[in-house]
Every structure is written in structure tokens, then in C-alpha cells.
């Protein structure tokens, strides 16, 4: 299913507007001190999917698909009423099947248990029973309405940069190209080509990886995200970076991906290239304001991400004190976010049991589908 994005379920049913997203998170927002916490959870969960995916030896594309499944599921569900950790496992499990690299359900369960139970995450009681994951898979696929084909920006990136072949870069560089379908473009004139060196291409690739940590994949078509990634790669040469920094505006932090690229090569974009770039962008015949908006959103993701810390729990920060934070610019850790989620759940439960409005809340009606929470 590589060619026709416009006719796809992705385009027809799963590009949502901001109002829909806002609505989807509205109730979760009542249980956090700062709206940022929801965005930080978005980063956290994407990181977990990435890590679980790597434990299961899933390709980058499969991890990306799993993350999109996760985002789609939470267009329809609440963080505070579900168990995102089982959902994460189910997303990896289904994405592996949907992308033709199935893993055994037992492996998913045991790797998830192993990973989530680590001190740094503090998720207790991940079910050890295969059937729990299988059941979650069913709810996931139902809520996805069986739409399992996901388009990703990687292919547009490679096509635009004239690297349709899979072996454009060495595998060390994060499997660039591996598992990405080649094929005719589904938009634009097919004329635009950009000569991108390996370094910048890698940077753009990594920026695309990073976008999955936000809800960008739900808001924009993949080719627009790819163009925004190229745009960011090229405008953020050292000079512009300095200028931006001087103004105190957000800039991408040093690479946090596990796949750190070496040295400064990937920031190299000669002025001449920028000149070409203007013409290149114009020739794409896409909405440049939209590209700029996506780029802005990526930049704010990086700013927020700067507050997310994978540092081990012994640093103490946020280890247990989920309650004390008022939601400023504090650094948050995975353990903090797990605690935050548990507290959201508890608060939700309390609210449903003792409604502030005094109206009887139909707990049973709202929560027809029960869960043993592990």
C-alpha cells in the first residue's frame, strides 16, 4: 500500500484537526497541574514504544507505525481511564504483524514486563498472561477500526532527496531507508529533487523520528512532515542556530536519540544549498505556511523535550514527589511520569465515585469494559 495516500484510510480517517485532539485530552487535562505534563507523557510513551520496539528488534518503520497506532487509540481514549503500558505493548505487537515482521506474543509480554518493571519506570503489575495482551490487541484493533496501513514521512524524504534505493546510508545510521517502500510519489509534480548530503539527510531522518514524540503525525500528512524536517535541517545551520539562540527562542537540543550521529557533519548546509532550497521549496507546490507551522511545532517539541530526563532514578529528581510539582519548568523523569499517570487514574476514580456535581455518575455505564489493571 505504498502509492495512493489520498485514497488511504490514513488520509480519510486519521488526519484530525486540533480541536479533535483538544477534545480527546480535555478530561485528562483536569487531572494534571500543567498542560505540559500531557505533552511530556506523549514524549514518555513514544520513548517507551521506541525502547520496547528495539528490545523486540523491530525496524524503525514498525516502531513508527506502533507509535501512530498509540496516538490514534488515544484520540478515542483517555490516559486516565486506560492502561497505556498495555496499550504500548499491544501497539508494538499489532504493528509488528501489520508490517510483516511478527513477534511472538510471549516475547512481547516478557520484554514488556522486564522493561516496565525497571526501577526507572516503576510500572508494577504488567500482566504476565498472554491473554491480557491478546485482549488489549482486540480493543486496539477495534478502536483503530481495522485501519492498519500507516504512511510515514521517510519515503517522501528519500524520494525528495533522490534516494529511492534502500541502501542510501549505512545501517549504522539508523536503518535509513530499510523497509521503506519505494514507488511513485503520491503528490506534487515529481520534479523537485534536492541534493542532500548524507549528513543532512541523516539529520532530517532523525527529526522525522523525533516527530513521533508529539501528535504531529495525527495532524499533518506525512509528506508535509518530511518537508518540514528537510526545512529544519537546512535552515538550522550553525549561523541561524546562533541567531535563534541569541533571541532565546527554542532550538533543538543536542541529539537525544539513542542513535547519536557523530560530529558536526550533519549541520553542514552551505549557503549555496540554501539558495537552491528556496526554489526547491517553491517547486514542491505545497503550503509553505503549513510547512513553517509544522517546523514550529517540531521546535516546541524540542524545547519541551529538554525538560524530559532519562537520568536514572537515583538522581532523586521526581522519583516519588509527583504530588509536589506545580508544573513549572521542572525536569521530569520517567518515574515521575509513571507516578503522575497513577495519580491521574486515582483522581479519576475518586471523581467517578464521588461526583462533584452531585449527580449520580453512571460508573457502570461509563466503564462497561472492565479491567483488572494488571
Amino acid at each position, binding site marked *: *500500500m505504498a502509492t495512493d495516500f489520498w485514497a488511504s484510510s490514513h488520509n480519510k480517517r486519521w488526519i484530525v484537526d486540533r480541536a479533535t485532539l483538544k477534545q480527546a485530552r480535555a478530561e485528562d487535562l483536569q487531572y494534571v497541574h500543567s498542560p505540559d505534563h500531557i505533552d511530556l507523557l506523549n514524549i514518555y510513551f513514544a520513548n517507551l514504544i521506541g525502547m520496547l520496539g528495539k528490545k523486540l528488534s523491530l525496524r524503525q518503520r514498525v516502531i513508527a507505525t506502533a507509535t501512530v497506532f498509540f496516538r490514534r487509540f488515544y484520540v*478515542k481514549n483517555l490516559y486516565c481511564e486506560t492502561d497505556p503500558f498495555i496499550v504500548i505493548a499491544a501497539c508494538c505487537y499489532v504493528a509488528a504483524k*501489520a508490517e510483516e515482521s511478527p513477534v511472538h506474543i510471549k516475547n512481547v509480554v516478557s520484554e514488556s514486563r522486564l522493561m516496565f518493571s525497571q526501577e526507572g519506570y516503576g510500572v508494577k503489575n504488567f500482566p504476565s498472561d*498472554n491473554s491480557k495482551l491478546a485482549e488489549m490487541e482486540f480493543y486496539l484493533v477495534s478502536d483503530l477500526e481495522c485501519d492498519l496501513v500507516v504512511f510515514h514521512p521517510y519515503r517522501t524524504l528519500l524520494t525528495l532527496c533522490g534516494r529511492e534505493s534502500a541502501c542510501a546510508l549505512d545501517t549504522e545510521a539508523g536503518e535509513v531507508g530499510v523497509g521503506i517502500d519505494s514507488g511513485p510519489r503520491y503528490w506534487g509534480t515529481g520534479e523537485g529533487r534536492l541534493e542532500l548530503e548524507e549528513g543532512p539527510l541523516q539529520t532530517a531522518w532523525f527529526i522525522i523520528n523525533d516527530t513521533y514524540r508529539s501528535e504531529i503525525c495525527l495532524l499533518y500528512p506525512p509528506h508535509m512532515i518530511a518537508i518540514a524536517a528537510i526545512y529544519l535541517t537546512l535552515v538550522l545551520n550553525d549561523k541561524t542556530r546562533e541567531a535563534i539562540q541569541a533571541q532565546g527562542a527554542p532550538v533543538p537540543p543536542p541529539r537525544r536519540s539513542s542513535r547519536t550521529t557523530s560530529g558536526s557533519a550533519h549541520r553542514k548546509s552551505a549557503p549555496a544549498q540554501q539558495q537552491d532550497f528556496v526554489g526547491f521549496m517553491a517547486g514542491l507546490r505545497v503550503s509553505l505556511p503549513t510547512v513553517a507551522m509544522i517546523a514550529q511545532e517540531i521546535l516546541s517539541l524540542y524545547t519541551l523535550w529538554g525538560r524530559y530526563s532519562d537520568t536514572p532514578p537515583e538522581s532523586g529528581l521526581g522519583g516519588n514527589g509527583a504530588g509536589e510539582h506545580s508544573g513549572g519548568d521542572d525536569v521530569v523523569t520517567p518515574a515521575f511520569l509513571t507516578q503522575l499517570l497513577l495519580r491521574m487514574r486515582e483522581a479519576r*476514580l475518586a471523581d467517578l465515585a464521588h461526583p462533584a456535581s452531585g449527580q449520580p455518575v453512571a460508573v457502570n455505564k461509563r466503564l462497561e469494559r*472492565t*479491567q483488572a489493571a494488571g
Partner: protein
Amino acid sequence: MDAVERANADRQKKWVKDQKVGEGTYAVVYRGRELATGRKIAIKKIKVGQFKDGLDMSAVREVKYLRELHHPNVIELLDVFSSKTNLNLVLEFLDTDLEMIIKDRSLVFLPADIKSWMAMMFRGLEFCHRNFILHRDLKPNNLLIASDGQLKIADFGLARDAADPGYKMTCQVITRWYRPPELLFGCRYYSTAVDIWSVGCIFAELMLRTPYLPGESDMDQLKTIFRALGTPTEEEWPGHTKLPDYVSIGQFPRTPLRDLFTAATADTLNLLSKCIVYEPRKRISAKDALNHPYFFALPYPTHPSKLPKTIAQTTAAASRPLDEVDGNVDLNSGAGPGATAAGTAPPKKLKRKLSGHDTSRNIARKLDFTAA
């Protein structure tokens, strides 16, 4: 009921399930109809088992592709909904399949009929291949026929995306009689050409009214192919002796197709021969096949509505034997005329209430606050 459940229930309410009509490896198929129009449909209920090992890979492939593919010659997935612990696919109802038509000895096929079926087959396949999808299980049984005579490619349980060059795929696909020699030799890097071979076999079967290359085992399949088409030479199929499971089968001479297909025109045999070329890269593509002179020569393809029909098709209006009525699903009750009024609450049974006695559902999308 939350918004998600309501949306699902709304979808479910549109369809009425009647009796069971068949069963496959991972699904039970029921006849049904669209409540609003009475249009006949099929409901394919995917067995989820008791949530032991998760969804069958074939089921995943089938829903994945059918959700995306919309073409007159590909079976149409009209809707999906879930009920209790099942996924239900709503498909257009198809009266019969090409295998039943081929086997129905009372039917006479004219060359124009065969041309019509071949054109529809290639159109559906070209659409799949254009979208980089390999079907990998083409055979008469998987080519279903609608009441208006349209042929529909069905059963995407083995389908997959054409992989990047250099990405290994399993060679254990395609029912043996329709399996191309490269797969029999264990080739793990293959292309859309595997489906073309199958189409060639079906083409021949339509003319012969019996399977063209019915091998009795995988080894015998190769022998059967070579007996019919001659042992391939290195020139005809460069590199085939290097394939993983290559074995020397013996030397068989090539006999002209004309000897077997005595009544066929030159165009017919030319297209057939291009579908069953040994070298996969030289096999004709679905797109080129559609432009082959065969389709432009006389006789022109029969209009689908005029194609030979089985008794089952002509009497399709009459009700079928009631094999089994599904007792556990809540659809029938929702079908009554009383439920049609807009805005009325869904029938009780439609509510997916999780009461204490339903022990099979101990986790859910949502957390169980009632148990806390």
C-alpha cells in the same frame, strides 16, 4: 456507553446478520443484509478465540488490505465493527466463485466468456500491483463472482506489500498448483510476477476446465511444470540453478502449447505463454497484459451480466438452507423494525454491558473502577 462504543454500535446497527454460509480457517461467514436497503451482504466474523495468541496473521493481512483497496474487481469491505469479543467484517455478498463455475459441467464457456473473466482478473490484479500489493494466493476458489457477473479478487490472507529489493519473504505461499517455479525452488526475493504465474494457470484452467498443472507434491509440482513446458535452460532462466532449493528434476522436452490448447487463437496462446515464462522478470505485467492484442481482438469479452452462471447463482434469490443460526451475537435483535427509528435508544442487547458473570473479559480498553 461512551462515544467510541456509540460509534461502533451505530455501525453495527446498519447490518443484519442471518444464517451461516461458510467457515474458513480464521473466520465464520454469515449471510446478512443492510438494514436500510435490504442489500445482501456477508458478515465475516473473525474468530478471536479465548484471547490466547492474538489475531491470526491472515486476519490482520486481510483487514489491513481490504480497508484500503477499493476497486470493482476487488472484494469490497463495506464496514467493520466489533461485537463482544469478535471483529466483524461487512463484505459485499458474492454468490459463487470461479472454481464452482469451472466445475459446473452444465456450463459451456465461450472464448469471449474466458476473455471477460481474464480482463476482470487482470484489472483487479493490476490495481493490487499498482499499490505494491502481492496477493500470493490466486486460484479459482479465491476469485468470487458477484450477482452481476463481476469477478472480485478475494482472500487477502496471504497478501503483503512488495518488499524492497533485498528484503526476504517466505516462499511458502500460493496454493501448489498455482505456485510459480521460483517459489518451488525456494526463492526468497520475488515480485508481482508470482501472481502472474497463478493467473496464467487459471487462464489455462478456464480453457481446459481442469487444473492445468496439478502436482501431487512440491517436488512433483516442478516435474508437472517441466513436463508441460519443458525443463528450463540456463538461457531461458538465467541463474535458476543457484536458487536455494534447486534440484535437478530431469530433462523434459518443450511441447508447444498449441498441442494442448487446440482451439485457442494465436493471441490467446501468446498471452498465456507470457504469463508462464520461467524467468520471473520476463513474465508479462498485469498492466501490459491489459494492453495485449488478445483483449482487442475478436471476439470481444462477454458483458459480465451475460457470463455463464451456476444454478446457485440463478437461484440465489431463493433462501439457502439454514446451516446454523448464530446464537451468541446481538445483531438479529437489533434488526427489528422497531429499532429503525432515528434517535431511539439502541436495543438492550446492543449494549456491551460487562456484568459480573461475563468472566471472559477481565481486562478492557478501560480500567475497571468498579472492582477497585
